[in-house]
């Protein structure tokens, strides 16, 4: 039996009837057509499907679409504003924080949650914070560099805006 859900994705409200067994990642990709969120391992391991739910990073392959009813979801498509890359996206670009790019959307969403929870990130806390995101190219050095750079930029812009 289909269930009606109503949720906000990247600021836009969506209403849909879904099968209870539909996983959130497939709802995002196939129903909404937002294919920036990737399916990697399908076993809650790799983190390629990471999105923000009410601001916190979650693996969207391990949540039912019905469980997202009423929630506020951000995917990689919701990060850039008015054509300007989000500071984390820009930092990945500038620090070459990707090789094949498959893990990148999940890395960026995981990083957004990490920086939100603790803007004073150290290299170690970034590495620990990425334990749920795998890069099969093993490009971690520059990913960590990019996240530290983004955290620094977000910290300093917060300082500017609080003046």
């Amino acid at each position, binding site marked *: 039996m289909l269930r009606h859900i109503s949720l906000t994705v990247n600021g836009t409200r969506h209403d849909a009837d879904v099968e209870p*067994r539909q996983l959130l990642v497939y709802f995002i990709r196939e129903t909404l057509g937002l294919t920036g969120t990737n399916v990697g391992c399908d*076993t*809650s391991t790799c983190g390629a499907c*990471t999105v923000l739910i009410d601001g916190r990073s*979650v*693996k969207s392959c*391990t949540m039912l679409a019905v469980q997202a009813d009423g929630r506020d979801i951000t995917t990689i498509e919701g990060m850039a504003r008015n054509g300007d890359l989000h500071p984390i996206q820009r930092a990945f670009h500038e620090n070459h924080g990707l090789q094949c790019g498959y893990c990148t959307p999940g890395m960026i969403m995981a990083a957004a949650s*990490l920086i939100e929870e603790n803007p004073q990130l150290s290299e170690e806390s970034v590495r620990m914070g990425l334990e*749920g995101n795998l890069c099969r190219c093993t490009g971690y050095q520059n990913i960590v560099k990019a996240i530290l750079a983004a955290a620094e930029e977000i910290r300093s812009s917060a300082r500017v805006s609080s003046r």
Partner: protein
Amino acid sequence: MIPAAFEYERAESVDQAVQLLGEHEDAKLLAGGHSLLPLMRLRLARPSLLVDIDRLSDLEYVREAGDTIEIGALARMSDLATDQTLWKHCPLLAHVCGEVGDPQVRHRATIGGSVAHGDPASDPPTALLTLDAVLVVRGPSGERTVPAKSFFTSVFETDLGPQDVLTAVRVPKLASGTGWSYQKFHRRAIDWAIVGVAAVVERDDGHLKRAAVGLTNMGSTPLRASGVESALAGAEAAPQALAAAAEHAPEGTAPVSDTNASAEYRTELSKILVRRALEEALAR
């Protein structure tokens, strides 16, 4: 991978969840879903009905109640891992909740789900067993409490009946000055423990007044290392005494062999991790 089809109901209260669970023979509760949904994707679990209690936010709390800390079953691992009350009175449990899975998993996973799932490789059940926690359960005939030591019955099996809902976990506050440690041995950060060891020690004049030691993944349930505990009773808080007691770690255990390690390996590892846990607990 898509789970087999099921019906879905969102419970608005614990009582409604109890009632819904009674309507289908193989209904399952769904909270954070980080144990159940992976099993359903692999079709190792095929419940006919999921009763979703994920939003019963009145079960998401940590509060002091006299000598105990009570934790609502839906408290998330990520919140428990940073909870100041828990860190103050029960740092072992706060630390262990931060060792589960990864940040994304901890944002969803609940303490109640971890306990009710009954996985002997899971860390929080061992911490609760070591801390002499009590579990609060609501079922068709009302509320009851179950000590952790009689809650876990076998692999993925607990004292919970088909219509029972675990609603809270009660953990005694640790006396100030109590040492603690959790040693989790695994190859990748997100893996389950190949073996895990929880230790809580109280000292008195260079001797051990009380020691509780729990083992993860050394049998079909979390276990207390009772051989170690008796060897430590009144023992000197010195490296040799700790090492000698740690040799008793495998007593009464029945570890499995799997892709991560053989039973023999786990047996040896348990002694080393018990020693390390006792040393760290005494250093704290």
